[in-house]
């Protein structure tokens, strides 16, 4: 039994496996299928200052080895989360991290401030990379200046762990990573979805109501892996890798590329228990190769 404990920024995780925002609800949706407290961390659905209805249906298109989504941050707002959802998740023995998004910098700050004093929320994931909203979201994460500005302002307002989720829809993701590191991010997570499109040729129409959406799943894995490798070399803060991880072997590839932790997203839709299988698979890998700790293989690409 290898040691899977890992500290990422201010977070102390029992293992490096987290579930990605928007793919695991609030965690409790999955408790019929498994013991969700075994997961290293659960990043809950993107939360905004006010209630959002999200985009019209259709919001999803299946694509080769993946899917496009255009949910558009549907959620009931941060106050609803604090009053109604937090009490149902606070006793789950894992790190519950809230993904925070906004249309303006002020939205991000107020939302983060409201989460500051929740004892059982050790950190937030700042979403400056959602491709499915008209205002804010990815707009903040695609330039170094705006990414730095929002992180700087939220950092002043939020005392706990600040993970910043980066967009792959940029020319050089390392520059953005360095910009948010300089403003006090505790870690960066990447990649959010890649902007894509699907068309129904019979109807001669786009499939998604929003025309474009975010691509996820194994189709994006090689791109995600390359970006994680680049960013891990560009910054000193820890990197959390995600993008198309379907099994333990995929997860280990990201860790070897330099990720201290990984997130599982789309795979949860195919196998609700996949995160547990990845945790067990990482442990088996470490035992099989004679490593004592997960820290032995972070960035250990030969």
């Amino acid at each position, binding site marked *: 039994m290898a040691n899977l404990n890992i500290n990422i920024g201010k977070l102390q995780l029992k293992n490096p496996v987290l579930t990605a925002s928007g793919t695991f609800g609030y965690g409790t949706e999955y408790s*019929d*299928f498994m013991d969700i407290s075994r997961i290293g961390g659960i990043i809950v659905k993107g939360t905004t200052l006010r209630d959002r209805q999200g985009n019209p*249906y259709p919001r*999803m298109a299946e694509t080769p*080895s993946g899917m496009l989504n255009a*949910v558009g941050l549907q959620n009931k707002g941060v106050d609803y989360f604090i009053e109604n959802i937090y009490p149902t998740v606070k006793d789950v023995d894992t790190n519950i991290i809230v993904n925070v998004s906004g249309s303006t910098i002020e939205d991000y700050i107020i939302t983060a401030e409201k989460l500051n004093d929740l004892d059982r929320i050790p950190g937030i994931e700042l979403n400056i990379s959602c491709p499915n909203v008209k205002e804010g979201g990815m707009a903040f994460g695609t330039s170094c200046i705006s990414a730095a500005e929002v992180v700087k302002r939220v950092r002043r307002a939020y005392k706990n762990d600040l993970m910043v989720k980066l967009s792959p829809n940029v020319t050089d993701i390392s520059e953005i990573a360095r910009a948010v590191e300089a403003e006090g991010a505790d870690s960066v997570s990447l990649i959010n979805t890649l902007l894509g499109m699907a068309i129904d040729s019979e109807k001669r129409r786009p499939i998604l109501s929003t025309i474009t959406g975010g691509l996820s799943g194994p189709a994006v894995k090689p791109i995600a892996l390359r970006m994680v490798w680049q960013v891990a070399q560009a910054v000193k803060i820890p990197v959390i890798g995600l993008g198309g991880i379907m099994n333990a072997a995929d997860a280990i590839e990201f860790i070897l590329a330099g990720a201290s932790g990984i997130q599982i997203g789309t795979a949860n839709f195919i196998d*609700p228990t996949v995160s547990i299988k990845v945790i067990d698979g990482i442990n088996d890998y470490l035992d099989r190769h004679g490593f004592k700790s997960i820290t032995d293989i972070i960035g250990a690409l030969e």
Partner: protein
Amino acid sequence: MKKFMLDLIVKKNETLNNQYSLLILTSPEKLPEMLPGQFVEVRVDNSPSTFLRRPISINYVDYEKNELWLLIQIVGDGTRKMCELKEGEVLNLLIPLGNSFSLPENKAAKLLLVGGGVGIAPLLFMGSYLKERGYSCSFLLGGRSKDNLLQLCEFERFGDVYTTTEDGSHGERGFVTQHSLLNGSNFDLIYTCGPTPMMKAVASYATKTGTNCEVSLENTMACGIGSCLCCVTDTTEGHLCVCTEGPVFNITKLKWQI
């Protein structure tokens, strides 16, 4: 209701015609309790173009024989692979998912179940469920031609069956909403499942006649358990997930233009 991820065994795969198969699944363990209107999410293996699970209505449950029936229409490669499954092969399911049709308080209520195409699937289970509980119901089933009218003998076990076909090859010619049964009959509750234009026509009939009506939606979905928020429908309470708040909705809750 507790949800499970189960490997079920194909007991029989009966080809109904070139478009439809009836998949009868079983398990060495007792099947979980299921309700009519609920569905399962099927993982399709060996189909590279099928990445996500496929939501399939529960067609019928025989607790004595420990059988779960799924009626499959071949739409793409995923459903084709399901129709090619051999006896003894294993299918991975998330089960049971979603809400169910509601039961009227009055056992003497006049109930009509209207189905079209593969949308008849959940109505068979609902018919059996109603009969077991002392209700009586009628079925009105429609299809393009008689090849699209499935399981008629099964439906007859649970109530009167009326049919329409667009080409007149079985029952009355036309759409279900043009059937003479609907002229003059008063139903207390209509349950419907089928193509959206058909369900909207049924909902429109129900609205005009002041009849209570529940529809079963089949929006495209990913997770099936309310986490991805992809399958939403617009309702009087905002966007709701069809997979958890549905698939069954009362038409008064939907923002349908009818």
